[in-house]
């Protein structure tokens, strides 16, 4: 099995979302581990621009051939952009989870919430524990 990747410039949730904050905007997607576990993604259901979500609130769904999984907001904020390409090409989430497979961009309402998220190395440890549980 190939090794999952964990970019250093992202922060991570226990539900396997990542967020990358550039200026005041947070870009959000699901992790390499998550896309691998889900398998071939065939549909991504995203919110509308202008929707507001609290930290931990479900904001959409990602659907593979096998299952539907909810997406959870890493931090509170308002959606300012969604990845329109995913409607036509949901497989981008499998192919490039931290890049072209991003899902939404938000403006953060409380940047201090970022402190509750995991760093790349913490998340990597967390995934190792999750994999142990699988066995």
């Amino acid at each position, binding site marked *: *099995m190939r090794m999952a990747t964990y970019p250093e410039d992202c922060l991570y949730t226990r539900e396997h979302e990542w967020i990358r904050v550039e200026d005041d905007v947070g870009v959000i997607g699901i992790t390499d581990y998550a896309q691998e576990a889900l*398998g*071939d993604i*065939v*549909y991504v*259901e995203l919110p509308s621009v202008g929707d507001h979500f609290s930290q931990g609130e479900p904001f959409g*769904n990602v*659907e*593979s*051939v*096998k299952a*539907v999984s909810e997406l959870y907001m890493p931090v509170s904020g308002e959606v300012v952009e969604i990845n329109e390409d995913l*409607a036509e090409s949901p497989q981008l989430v499998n192919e490039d989870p931290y890049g072209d497979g991003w899902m939404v961009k938000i403006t953060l309402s409380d940047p201090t919430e970022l402190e509750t998220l995991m760093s790349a190395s913490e998340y990597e440890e967390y995934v190792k524990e999750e994999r142990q549980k699988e066995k």
Partner: protein
Amino acid sequence: MHEALGARFTEFAGWLMPVQYTGAIEEHLAVRTAAGLFDVSHMGRLEVRGRDALTLIQKVTCNDAARLRDHQVQYSALTTERGTFVDDLTVYRFREDHFLLCVNAANREKDLRWIRQHREDEEAEVYDVSDQMAQLALQGPAATEILQPLTDVQLDHIRFYWFEQGEVAGVSALISRTGYTGEDGFELYIPAASAEWVWNRLLDAGQSAGMKPCGLAARNTLRLEARLLLYGHDMDETTTVWEADLGWIVKLEKGDFIGREALRRQKAEGLRRKLVGFEVLDRAPAREGYPVLIHGRVVGQVTSGSYAPFLRKNIGLTYLPIEHTAIGTRFHIRVRGREVEAEVVPTPFYKRPR
């Protein structure tokens, strides 16, 4: 052995089953364009032996097993007195006094009990031989070219829904031209102890043709595209054979069988609902259990539904009131609170080119 290939597993009817190896879509497409290899050893296998084996089978199934010749296979159903499904199955005839029934994994004990319970003075015994055998399915347009070098049996001579006995990779095998994918292909019944050996020989033999090992996820999407029903989802003890739109396996004229009266009556009175195939007119797949609505009223639920990897559409099956089952009829499916439109379409969704 499957773990070595990177398979991911799930529990199914007490079996640890590979869900996927390299990816559900890749596996699905391999079967449509080249070949796929499935371990379907979880299926139940019952043997019926004895002078009255045929008589007993005729009594418990709705298709006409008397039409079978030696080494022929038939799709059929074990039916209740109400004409509903105890199970669906394939009936293999070796001789008039010796049959093999391939049944659903989850139903194997129920079926065995059911058949034994309905045996009266017939001289026939039913045995569960599932654990002695492994079952592999080699499916796809390249199946014959992959299997032929490994066997002494002339595969061209086995017609669809017939079988032969011979050797595969030096192991004695029943080779049947059957499957659950909508493609040409074979199912191999082999001694359980030889499963890993034969599996590995087939993997080697299929490599250059692009064959892939396939898991349960691909098996499910393949059978759905071909509109092959799945027991416990698309039909069960609450749905009749007519309602499941499997009327072609009901032979009322064959003589008495369990459920015949109910099926005859339902045919005369007409159906109130029927299983249909639909296409979702939306990007969201409709999955099993999602509510189905007509004019805003819930009339049922999706029994099977998925993204169809070869057709690149969202398809599914559901029971609809009979007046709404015409091709082209539009209805709605509730997908997580949102109502998406769907349309009744002709099935099978996918039919292989001949």
